[in-house]
């Protein structure tokens, strides 16, 4: 699987390259600034891009803007954005085109190599990987809304794991319940929130995120 990596700190960049290559990814180019990132994305058209939000030359949200521009040119280009902090605003912008293939994680999530690699694969496959912190903020914001309040605690757990982008199998593994039980919960959640059911995992996640974002 071909990866473009953007990270300006050499120490982290080398670490990420080592980590990705140890897990059978091929890092086709590793860049350290915004303009090179945009060029690398449009020339290599990688299977997935792993990008730090803050990059030179401005040291602001250069990386984020580069991937959003790239996705405008190559719709659905899978990107996993890493950051020292998460902002609802940025999650919302990444999700705005509703095509999936988007990840937004805190840099600390790299510590858990297994989960991080899963997230990269998930995004490459057109799925979504949202940081638990983003989802918990979204849920707090909507906690007083009637349909969300009506959910059972278990359903709320399933909802937040689903919004993070996890598959039914992963949710089942995490909560120590059967996959069948998970799909029972998801059916009930979708009914209560008034969302259309869908067999496709990715589309389901996007629907939930759109609902939580209030759009």
């Amino acid at each position, binding site marked *: 699987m071909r990866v473009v990596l953007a990270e300006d700190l050499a120490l982290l960049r080398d670490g990420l390259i080592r980590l990705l290559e140890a897990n059978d990814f091929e890092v086709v180019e590793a860049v350290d600034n915004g303009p090179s990132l945009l060029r690398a994305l449009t020339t290599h058209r990688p299977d997935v891009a792993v990008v730090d939000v*803050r990059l030179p030359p*401005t*040291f*602001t*949200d250069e990386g984020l*803007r580069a991937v*959003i521009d790239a*996705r*405008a040119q190559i719709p659905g280009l899978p990107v996993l954005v890493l950051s*020292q*902090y998460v*902002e*609802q*605003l*940025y999650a*919302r*912008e*990444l999700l*705005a*085109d509703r095509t999936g293939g988007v990840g937004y994680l*805190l*840099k*600390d999530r790299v*510590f858990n190599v297994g989960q991080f690699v899963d997230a990269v694969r998930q995004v490459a496959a057109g799925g979504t990987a949202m940081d638990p912190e983003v989802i918990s*903020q979204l849920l*707090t*914001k909507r*906690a*007083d809304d009637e349909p969300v309040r009506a959910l059972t605690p278990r359903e709320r757990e399933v909802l937040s794991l689903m919004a993070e982008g996890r598959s039914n199998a992963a949710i089942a593994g995490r909560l120590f319940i059967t996959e069948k039980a998970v799909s029972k919960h998801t059916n009930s959640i979708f009914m209560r929130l008034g969302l259309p059911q869908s067999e496709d995992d990715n589309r389901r996640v996007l629907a939930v995120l759109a609902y939580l974002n209030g759009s």
Partner: protein
Amino acid sequence: MVNELGERLKLVWWAVLLTMFACLGLVLFCVLLTGVAVVLVSVGIPMLMVCFPLLRRFADFHRHWAGKWLGVTIPASYRPRPKGNPFVRLWATVRDPASWRDVLWLFVNGTFGLVLCIAAIVESVLGLLFWWWPKKGALYLDALLVKWLLSPSEKALLASRVQELAESRAETVDSQAAEIRRIERDLHDGAQARLVALGMNLGMAADAVDTDPQTARLLLAEAQAASSQALAELRGLVRGIHPPVLADRGLVGAVQALALATPLAIDVEADVPGRLAAPVESAAYFAVAEALTNVIKHSGAHHVGITLRHAHGVLHMVVEDDGRGGATIGAGSGLRGIERRLGAFDGSLKVTSPPGGPTSVIMELPCESSSPKTSPSSGTG
């Protein structure tokens, strides 16, 4: 018709009143001079103790009248009177140049002013008989006289400005020092301590890795957890010092991000083209954030509206909520902190918060906006 008559009658009344006052002022002037002349005799000092405060009231009354008449505000600029015994206060009054300007005016008002007022009586009575007679005349000149003599001198204005600046600087320095102490403590007890624990765990894991891999694995997991916690604490700290999104997106973007991350229904309306200077941006952001924190803590509101507008070199920020009201700028309240923050930039804070709500916190910061070269495109995606 009735209004016109009322107004012209009022003119007569004012002309008469001011004439009487001019005479009374002349009496006060004589008493004051006598007081000064016999100040070494026991009766002189008590005379001045009565006369000066009376003179201030008298001058304030005329300032108010003339200001209203001319449509301007004529501020008084006496030095703050020290607390303490009456002698100390008298001494401070005597040393205040504004007091002697008052005395000068008192004399002019009792002579030239008196002539003007008498002319005004004649004029206003004529005005009652002949309606084509203009209403602005001698009284207007008298008001100009008051404005000219009772407005604070350039020097007094500067002095009061220096006083203001010294106060706001002292407050800024104080609050900055407190802020730095807080950051130091947070780093010391938080991230620093966790990094020490992390290093210890790693060292022990290195020792145990050959003999007891099970324990080594446990220690490594602990080290990982410690580094996650250290990062989370540093994130919180950085957010408190200068939120990254503020650097990324400027005031409007940062306030929008704040609204999204706050568990309340918040509408943000913004019209701030370009970017503001970094220190102003930061002060403005934290002022809004503090106002929002106040809403969450005290108001019980369901809905908040935030308006940001930059026009004519002033940034207007309004935070309104539909909560229970009754907010005041008291000591120790968040609003006092906002006032201090804005004060460092000559900004101001106003609060209207009747019991039962709604509450509006209105903040203003004089500042210039740069050309929008550094502002990112907002229509992303």
